[in-house]
């Protein structure tokens, strides 16, 4: 498997690489069986870009996102996040990276039930050791931004799915992450609400956030100017600002 330099072609934006994957593999060993969830992936993602990762079920999308999210380590290959090689870091160091550089949005929102909206948004700040007053203020601003300024003291169970996802987005933004990672963010939402959430992500992209999103739905993927198509643990094709690179391996 050879690395094609074409994989790193990027519009002449002058923005730096936030993510760089070099020959990344992820192999799950199940007894005598080896599952190559990622079979050698090369990818560069520049600051401020908005990417969709598409592909059929089992093609390795979530595996890739988990690696990008520092929730996992590659079996081989290198992963540079903000210029640091994070492919061999310890559990604590990965946690530190997630805390400082990453924000997660999940399909099932994953808000913590016993916490209020405000406390949920404050969660990353709590682990960052922020002053309680400052985090309160920041949480209020973020809630305002996602349109839930009035719901700060509500519990997640009192909110609709779309509202919960907005809270989750606010929480993911609390630490001002380099990358926002979303695994099927609209998977549990109806089409109208999905649109609203995607509009919100679009706004964040316009404000300069780097976003990587896994999705099944082509409609949703169109919100992202760039798209990685996966098949059998490999990048099948990359669509970047309308240009398509076939068979990038």
């Amino acid at each position: 498997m050879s690395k094609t330099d074409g994989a790193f072609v990027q519009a002449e934006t002058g923005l730096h690489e936030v993510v760089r994957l070099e020959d990344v593999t992820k192999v799950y060993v199940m007894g005598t069986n080896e599952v190559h969830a990622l079979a050698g992936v090369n990818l560069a993602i520049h600051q401020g870009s908005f990417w969709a990762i598409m592909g059929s079920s089992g093609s390795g999308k979530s595996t890739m996102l988990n690696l990008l999210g520092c929730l996992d380590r590659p079996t081989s290959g290198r992963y540079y996040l903000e210029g640091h090689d994070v492919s061999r870091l310890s559990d604590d160091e990965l946690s530190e990276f997630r805390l400082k550089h990453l924000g997660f949005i999940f399909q099932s929102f994953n808000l913590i039930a016993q916490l209020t909206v405000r406390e949920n948004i404050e969660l990353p700040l709590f682990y960052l050791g922020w002053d309680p007053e400052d985090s309160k203020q920041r949480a209020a601003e973020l809630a305002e931004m996602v349109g839930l300024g009035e719901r700060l003291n509500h519990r997640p169970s009192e909110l609709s799915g779309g509202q919960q996802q907005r809270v989750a987005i606010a929480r993911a933004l609390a630490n001002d992450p380099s990358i926002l990672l979303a695994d099927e963010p609209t998977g549990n939402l109806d089409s109208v609400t999905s649109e609203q959430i995607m509009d919100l992500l679009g706004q964040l992209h316009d404000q300069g956030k780097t976003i990587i999103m896994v999705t099944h739905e082509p409609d949703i993927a169109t919100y992202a100017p760039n798209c990685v198509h996966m098949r059998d643990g490999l990048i099948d094709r990359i669509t970047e600002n309308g240009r398509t690179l076939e068979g990038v391996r």
Partner: protein
Amino acid sequence: MKKSRIWRSVLLGINTLMLHKLRSMLTMLGVVFGVASVIAMLAVGEGASKDALEQIRKLGSNNIILSSQKPVEEESGGSMRSPFSVSMYGLTYDDETRAMETFSRIRTTAPAKIVRKEGRLGTRTLDLRLVGTTADWFRLVKREMIAGRTLLPSDVDQKAAVVVLTEYGARRLLATRQAVGQSLRLGGEYFQVIGIVRSEGGEGSSVQTPDQQVDAYLPITVARERYGDVVSIRTSGSFIRERVELHQLIVEVENTDHVETVAAGLEQMLKTFHPKGDYRISVPLALLKQAEATKRTFNIVLGSIAGISLLVGGIGIMNIMLASVTERTREIGVRRAIGAKKRQIITQFLIETMVLSTLGGMIGIAIGVAIPALITYFADMATVVTSYSLLLSVGISMSVGLIFGLYPAKRAADLDPIIALRHE
């Protein structure tokens, strides 16, 4: 910063526990009852042994108490003897001198000669137990003075007609503090009241000292001279005449370490000179040691029972926390994804179990303090809640939280974030 974070974690823990109030309460019950039983049982045990120990201690740990005892054969054969025969038994003046001369470790001896007489003060009368003794007696039995003074060596030497009353006796004779200086008639003789001592009520101890409430203390020389050594006791139509020189002899040993050897020596000596076995020897120190050993055994048994109940309580907490970890797998995954380190997950769960167990411990303390109070109130039993049992309980309940919380917390922290996030 660090401190406020821990405080916030505690608040969060309480918050989380409040979500399942009933479950949290039930989880705490084990620790509540464990702690309550530790405190209550220790309080009852302490209360029961305290009186006994106190009483024995009052007898003096340096003292050996010898008393006269009517030999068994004489007692049974009493009715067949002539009404004028005199049965002789008990400790003698010689015993006292001999003990003093034989054992260099003996510091002092205080003899007691007991005679029953009616006392009269003004118009009131009371049957008194006259105790003829010496000045040393009061020091050895540690009787508290209320008014006046106790006997002096000079009273004994000069055969002064003076008497010391007990508080109880004085009250029965309608004498107040002013009774000191008044004349008390004992039998046919007049004595001057020189002092009043605190009564030592309290039976129940296995050691009998002539410390009954109606004692009146007078110099032994006077008692001997006026009342002699022979006592007549009227029983069902016949007189029994007894000759007893000394009813009791308190021997004070120089040093606690020598009490046991001197006691053994005295026993040997008495055995030689009193083949009838008309004496009894009791060693408060030995009794004290025995009582303390009993108390220790008691405490160990109680401690084990309480320990087992706390163990059960701890296992209960662990069980619920393990269930809670499973239930909150997603939450753990989210926290880890956000950037919480393993250590922080451990802290979070440990704080929760410690809040549970400490709160349970505090409720347990409240109940554990209330139970002895109720026992004292309703059953009129002495109980003593010691501060050490409270500290012990707080310590134990917190360590139960720590020990039984560690494993579930570790389980939570070791979850793979990806798997945790995927958990349904």
